[in-house]
């Protein structure tokens, strides 16, 4: 595509000025609320004081990054971010695929609808309520989970204060909340598989497992790959909104991720420079991951996201 001439551009402009007006409100919003904050990222290079603004704050170069990266929190937040992402990838990513296969394999229409409807429901319950349920269910004195443990002869435990329980709790909570929602894409893909393939396999004497293994799974691999790529970029942006509701100082050692650290340093401690540096660090890694994932996907499947 060559560079369009000035006249052609003017013609296109005249042809689409009404469209430009329709575009304008959204565009202005993006500039004011998405791109303007990006300019504010330079806080990361200042000893930023909220009351004096940029004029009254000193430019300190990479000092904030050094403070963050040399400090004890860096290794911890990186490790926790990666570990929580790993738990998510290993448990929360495959679960909806399995759920979708279970749902589509069911013969009973009623049960199939029931399973789909009830597993989808938790997605509509807010993060605050879900976290509130988790906290109260795990309470050592009144929590239902501890009641079940006691019933089975175990001992009540204050799960929320022990670091070793944080990742399982967080992962299971996310699983409960999102598995049904994420399964929908796979169910749609499974319904697109040609039933004749199954009939042909049946004629060849393939059992249920063989049919699932050789027809169902290959049939949804493109969807799995797409979903995987879409999730890669989110790896570093683990769900800080629920983590800040569930963690406490005693579980920071396993729960504190980059975004929660940035949030705590900034909004709660007022250390805006370091908080922004940590946030920028995270955002850049996320960007790199998305770009890599897309490159890989282009090569592997010819289905790139852009």
């Amino acid at each position, binding site marked *: 595509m060559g560079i369009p001439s000035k006249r052609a551009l003017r013609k296109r402009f005249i042809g689409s000025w009404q469209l430009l007006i329709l575009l304008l409100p959204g565009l202005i919003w*993006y500039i004011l609320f998405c791109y303007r904050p*990006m300019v504010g990222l330079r806080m990361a290079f200042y000893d930023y004081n909220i009351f004096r603004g940029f004029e009254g704050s000193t430019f300190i170069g990479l000092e904030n990054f050094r403070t963050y990266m040399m400090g004890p929190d860096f290794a911890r937040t990186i490790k926790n971010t990666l570990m929580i992402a790993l738990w998510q990838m290993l448990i929360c990513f495959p679960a909806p695929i399995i759920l979708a296969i279970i749902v589509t394999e069911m013969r009973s*229409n009623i049960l199939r609808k029931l399973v789909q409807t*009830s597993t989808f429901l938790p997605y509509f319950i807010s993060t605050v309520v879900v*976290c509130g349920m988790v906290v109260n269910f795990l309470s050592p004195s009144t929590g239902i989970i501890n009641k079940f443990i006691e019933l089975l002869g175990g001992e009540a435990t204050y799960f929320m204060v022990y670091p070793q329980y944080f990742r399982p709790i967080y992962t299971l909570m996310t699983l409960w909340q999102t598995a049904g929602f994420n399964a929908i894409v796979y169910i749609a893909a499974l319904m697109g*598989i040609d039933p004749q393939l199954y009939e042909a*396999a049946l004629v060849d004497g393939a059992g249920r497992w063989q049919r699932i293994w050789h027809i169902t799974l290959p049939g949804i691999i493109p969807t799995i790959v797409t979903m995987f790529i879409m999730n890669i970029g989110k790896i570093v942006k683990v769900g800080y909104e629920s983590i800040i509701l569930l963690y406490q100082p005693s579980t920071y050692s396993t729960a504190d991720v980059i975004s929660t650290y940035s949030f705590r340093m*900034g*909004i709660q401690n007022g250390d805006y420079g370091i908080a922004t540096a940590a946030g920028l660090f995270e955002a850049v890694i996320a960007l790199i991951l998305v770009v890599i994932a897309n490159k890989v996907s282009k090569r592997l499947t010819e289905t790139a996201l852009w």
Partner: protein
Amino acid sequence: MAHKAKASNHGGSSVGIESRGERIFDAVLAIIGILLVFIALYPIYYVFIASISRPLYVENGAVMFRPVLATIESYREAFQTPFLWTSFGNSIFYTLFGVLVNMAFSTTMAYALSRPRLIFRKFFTLVAVFTMWFSAGIIPMYMNFRDFGLLDSRMAILFGFCINTYNMIILKSFFEQVPSSLEEAAFIDGASDFRIFGQIYLPLSKPSLATVGLFYAVTRWNGYFWPMNLLTSDSKVPLQVLLKKLLVDRTANEMESAIITAESLSSQTTVIYALIIIAIIPMVIVYPFIQKYFKSGITIGANKG
């Protein structure tokens, strides 16, 4: 046993032969299915039965599968929570007007971006899509609101989050699916872009608008993070922010709960469970109606990326 071919295709490998192995397979699936339904619904069911039981039996573990000595005292107390009704009203306000703002900004921009005629279309699309890959983050966004003097302002909630890029892209792909012959015909009749958008495209895409509107509505109703950070007055916060204080921050003062006897009709715990039920009831009521819209939206979103 003869088996009719299924009229509707629901996917899956079951194609109508019932050997013994197949029947065992189906039975195992059915059991797993029932288990899944239990896991998905039990937490909500438990919150409900605990909220209407006497606290002593909740605390000693007698309440597990059905309520014990049912009472609505916990609800009576929950409804007396300061600012509960205010925040409930605020949530309705933010959801209703927030979604209107969302739809106004998202549909216009999505429509413009869906027209190949638009000048610099690729660039403008990139401006929107880039924000999905890179965002300034919590602190700069907070400072941005502060710069605009929008801290503790309802306007921040309404206008700070006009467009969710993902939803906007879904709308854009909906508009792209409308046959362009309609637009061309209207053009020949001398209609302006505004009229084509407002009188042809919007009415034609009602189901899609409903889908995206519901996406926005659920996000608005359930969101707590930005309202929590931006709003400081109790009179302005939505329900989720109030709930956060009541449900989650409560663990910090776990110790100060009162002594519970067999006669107690409510406790801190049962009141919390009552509050959870109050909070999720609006969602549970609308859920059956909005489910199908969500499903279609999710599928399109995933195909479009």
